């Protein structure tokens, strides 16, 4: 027995030794999606400001949110999340109220980008990219030009089993809300039931729910018409010039991915410097040029190569056009009804 007990002691000892060995807490820790900022950005940031920084990745908003909430927002300094999640961070008291004096590059933003509904005046979050949600399709395979959400939800015979919809709950419901002409933040139970029925019917003609590889399905021809974010549709366009993006006539939502500084950050100085660094016109332009997303940075967008906009027309959409669309907002207590509806749709046969 003695033997076993000492081996357990040894084991615990090893574990603790591991723990104390890792004390690189002075680095600025940034959590972002993979490939969402320039690979060399951190090195040049360190060079420019003298702050050491490391990048960690999250696959989805949900993962990083779960981690921030369960740990009370500790360990991270700057996180990239979509606007409804930035709103939650603010409401839960985890987001730092921004001191604009320390972010002089905020001046580069379009005036529209400082009046976003989820956070007017950029008090807790800074927009990083923005865009719309619509239809991405193979113009060589689909007859005519799709222009309505009904083309996705109620597809023609040729498109049966060749469409995909976004799996993330808010965007999935969003397609239904827009098709019915409702607000994307609708909470009325009857309208929610309408949308549920519509989406359950639509499920029958669907190939899959997919929010990661839908563009690859278009490229291979496995799918011909997919529900997509404009920026991701561009990945498909880059592989196959016959792929096109269209915003249905009933409208779209305006999605915004943001940067949030955590209140619990122990490196606030460096965190501000980082956000300010990203907002620099040249640095911010990287996102448009490489990940093909629109950035809300006027100085950056004006310097964009017109040839790029010609190849990816949705990059040319103006802030004015986008502001016509409603943003997804946190719906508070109605979230339970949303979750239930999504469960009903996913569980329907």
């Amino acid at each position: 027995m003695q033997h076993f007990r000492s081996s357990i002691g040894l084991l615990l000892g090893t574990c603790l030794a591991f723990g104390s060995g890792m004390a690189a807490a002075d680095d600025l820790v940034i959590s972002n999606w993979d490939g969402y900022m320039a690979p060399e950005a951190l090195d040049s940031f360190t060079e420019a400001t003298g702050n050491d920084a490391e990048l960690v990745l999250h696959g989805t908003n949900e993962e990083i949110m779960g981690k921030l909430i369960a740990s009370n927002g500790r360990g991270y300094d700057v996180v990239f999340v979509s606007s409804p999640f930035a709103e939650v961070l603010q409401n839960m008291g985890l987001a730092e109220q921004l001191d604009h004096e320390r972010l002089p590059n905020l001046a580069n933003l379009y005036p529209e980008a400082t009046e976003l509904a989820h956070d007017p005046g950029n008090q807790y979050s800074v927009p990083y990219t923005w865009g719309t949600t619509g239809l991405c399709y193979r113009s060589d395979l689909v007859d005519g030009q799709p222009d309505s959400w009904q083309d996705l939800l109620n597809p023609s015979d040729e498109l049966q089993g060749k469409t995909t919809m976004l799996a993330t709950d808010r965007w999935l419901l969003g397609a239904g809300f827009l098709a019915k002409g409702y607000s994307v933040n609708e909470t009325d139970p009857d309208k929610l039931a309408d949308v549920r029925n519509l989406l359950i019917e639509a499920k029958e003609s669907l190939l899959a729910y997919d929010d990661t590889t839908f563009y690859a399905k278009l490229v291979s021809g496995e799918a011909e018409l997919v529900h997509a974010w404009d920026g991701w549709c561009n990945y498909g366009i880059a592989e196959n010039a016959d792929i096109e993006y269209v915003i249905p006539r009933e409208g779209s939502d305006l999605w915004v991915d943001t940067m949030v500084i955590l209140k619990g950050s122990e490196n606030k100085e460096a965190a501000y410097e980082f956000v300010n660094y990203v907002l620099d016109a040249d640095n911010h332009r990287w996102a448009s040029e490489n990940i093909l997303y629109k950035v809300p940075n006027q100085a950056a967008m004006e310097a964009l190569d017109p040839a790029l906009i010609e190849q990816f027309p949705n990059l040319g959409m103006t802030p004015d056009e986008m502001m016509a669309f409603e943003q997804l907002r946190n719906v508070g207590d109605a979230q339970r009804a949303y979750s239930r509806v999504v469960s009903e749709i996913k569980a329907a046969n």
Partner: protein
Amino acid sequence: MTNRSSLRFMLLILSATFAFLYIPISVLFALSFNASGLPTAWTGFSTHWYGELIANSDIIGAALNTLIVAIVSTLAATLLGTLLAIGVEIRRRKGRVLETVIFAPMIIPDIVLAIALLSFFSMLDFRMGLHTIIISHTVFNLAFVCAVVRARLKSFDWSIVEASTDLGATPPITLRRVILPVLTPAVVAGALLAFTLSIDEFIIAYFTAGSGRDSITLPMQIFSMIRFGVTPEINALAVLVMTLSVVALAISQRLNRGRLPGQ
């Protein structure tokens, strides 16, 4: 126990099973040499992705972290789980609470254990890192090891233990000389199982890791790269991991043979 025809039947079963197990592996093997980045078209043979892989220190670092987590948590879980199994099976009286606690790690949804451990560690102001992943993986791993070992013990003849005790052996000696040798195949099976579970586990690792790069494991790295599907780089890594495992096995076989010339 075998005559010729039943041996042939056994070989047939084995080949069919191994074919099933290795079909997807051959696909990813082929894709790792595909010049194209998308898995949809074969555009020619290339070792380009292996070069990318070796240059990608993030992936290599994550793979090493995974190995550390898997090995340490497997050792801990094998030790704890085997003792637990022996203890439970010696006791004739089965307690419901005890059984529940032992089965629970297999049943509790991963996300619950993940969030529970993260909340718990941050409540206690516990520093997070690879060690917290190891602690957490040991929780479910030990339950799986315990279950495998118990399956073996159910058909164990406890009268030899009594005989050994009657002959004056102390309990530790009985454990080491009588029980453990019989259990070895089950313990090895349990350890392999634990290692395999740990090497692939994502959600608990993600939540119980520290926030920095130094505690990122391979599944965490790969899940976060899913945005672009699985790149051939990752396929190349999978091929490399399996190849290295086979090499390691071959070397250990060679060494064993050297030490035990009689075998």
